[in-house]
């Protein structure tokens, strides 16, 4: 009896370990808590359950002493799903204003999960920051989807089959798509290679492995270890806040390079590599280039292409706003 029970549990465990975890994670953000129902008594949870407006006034409370701005409902600081207050630095006051705008322009009954993109991203940033502090409750870490090492490893997988590293065959769209890809992707790839080379431990020149449908056909793609190490070093250099934004961008665009581009372009400094200089519109275009060509050829499908197009734009710009520091 006991042995069979043991065997049974062994089988269950072995099946579980043979199915890679990421198959079920593909479509959703890495860190959302969808295993256990989250019942922490926070404003964000209450809103997501009732979708009713339960407050009168949204305000920003500025604390001049520690240079922080708190987002408040009727005088109480709003909490993230994990129970941390939504408080941002003084240097992100524009972000704070936009957060307030987001909450003040909600109307009852029309509140949906997509109504508060900035708040959800900022919540994730704050939660990740808090769970990365030493001595954090392991249960909270599990709720956010593992510590930042898990997230980094998951993100690294996007570099293998990066949207910007996969080139379509010359025969498609009479070669127009390939020409556009060459024009748009190659300079960005070159810039990223130059950028990642700075993070290589042995100071090697980084070369990203490209998947060219004309030469390689249909197969997977994998980056050499030097590249993976450099990318890992880059992610290690980011703060938890920035890592959350990188994650959002990479998951939205399915491209690690796009994530690097967004982060570097929103970091205001004069030493931005000229090869990396781009804008958000261009990032969106790069991530959706193939769809753009398909729409041109076959037409736009209602309730799909138009929604997706605005969706990716709003997500990228959300990430851009959260990444910006005055």
């Amino acid at each position: 009896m006991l042995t069979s029970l043991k065997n049974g549990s062994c089988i269950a465990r072995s099946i579980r370990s043979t199915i890679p975890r990421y198959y079920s994670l593909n479509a959703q953000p890495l860190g959302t808590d969808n295993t256990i129902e989250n019942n922490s008594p926070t404003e964000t949870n209450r809103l997501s359950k009732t979708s009713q407006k339960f407050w009168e006034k949204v305000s920003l409370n500025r604390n001049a002493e520690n240079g922080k701005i708190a987002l408040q409902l009727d005088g109480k600081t709003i909490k993230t799903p994990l129970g941390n207050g939504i408080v941002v630095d003084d240097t992100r006051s524009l972000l704070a204003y936009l957060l307030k705008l987001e909450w003040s322009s909600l109307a009852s009954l029309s509140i949906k999960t997509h109504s508060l993109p900035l708040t959800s991203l900022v919540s994730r940033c704050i939660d990740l920051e808090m769970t990365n502090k030493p001595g954090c409750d392991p249960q909270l870490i599990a709720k956010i989807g593992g510590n930042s090492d898990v997230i980094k490893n998951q993100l690294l997988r996007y570099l293998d089959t990066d949207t910007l590293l996969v080139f379509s065959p010359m025969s498609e769209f009479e070669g127009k798509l390939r020409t556009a890809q060459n024009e748009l992707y190659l300079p960005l790839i070159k810039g990223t290679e130059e950028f990642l080379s700075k993070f290589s431990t042995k100071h090697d020149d980084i070369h990203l492995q490209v998947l060219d449908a004309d030469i390689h056909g249909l197969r997977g793609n994998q980056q050499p270890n030097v590249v993976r190490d450099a990318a890992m070093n880059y992610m290690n250099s980011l703060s938890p806040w920035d890592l959350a934004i990188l994650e959002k961008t990479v998951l939205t665009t399915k491209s690690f390079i796009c994530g690097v581009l967004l982060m570097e372009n929103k970091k205001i400094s004069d030493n931005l590599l000229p090869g990396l200089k781009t804008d958000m519109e261009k990032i969106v275009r790069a991530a959706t280039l193939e769809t753009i060509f398909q729409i041109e050829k076959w037409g736009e499908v209602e309730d799909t292409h138009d929604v997706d197009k605005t969706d990716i734009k709003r997500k990228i710009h959300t990430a851009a706003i959260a990444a910006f520091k005055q």
Partner: protein
Amino acid sequence: MDRARALHGYKGLIRAILKYERPSKVANWGTLRKTMITKLEYFKKQNPKMSHEDTDKQLESWKKLDPVNDRSLNLYVSDSKQLRSILQNDIKWDEKIVQGQSVDEIFEHTFDVIKFLDNQREYQELVDRYNPGNKLTQDEKIKRTANIVGLDVPA
């Protein structure tokens, strides 16, 4: 040159915020209108002996109010002072210029903010348009479900 660009950016930002806020403003005015009308009518019923000239006037004006089409309700940003103070004081323009940093990124960022507001609004409009049932209350949903099979929900 920079002045013109700043003005262009600020105008665009205000316009985007106004458009973004509009649906919730319309909804809020709608609820306020409803409560005010109910309150005034209740007051009339409670005091049948009083003359109700003033109340009638107020009632009239509330009933005339049409939040969906009244553009004058949407001419201002409710906290433009805060926004102005952030743009003027928090972004340290002078320091940046003295240090020789380029302010292009900040202008660019303003347009990114505008694009965010516009795309978020557009996305919500699209989702609402393709899922018309989303905005109904539970009661309304039940009523309509009953109607499909030819039944009425008791009042």
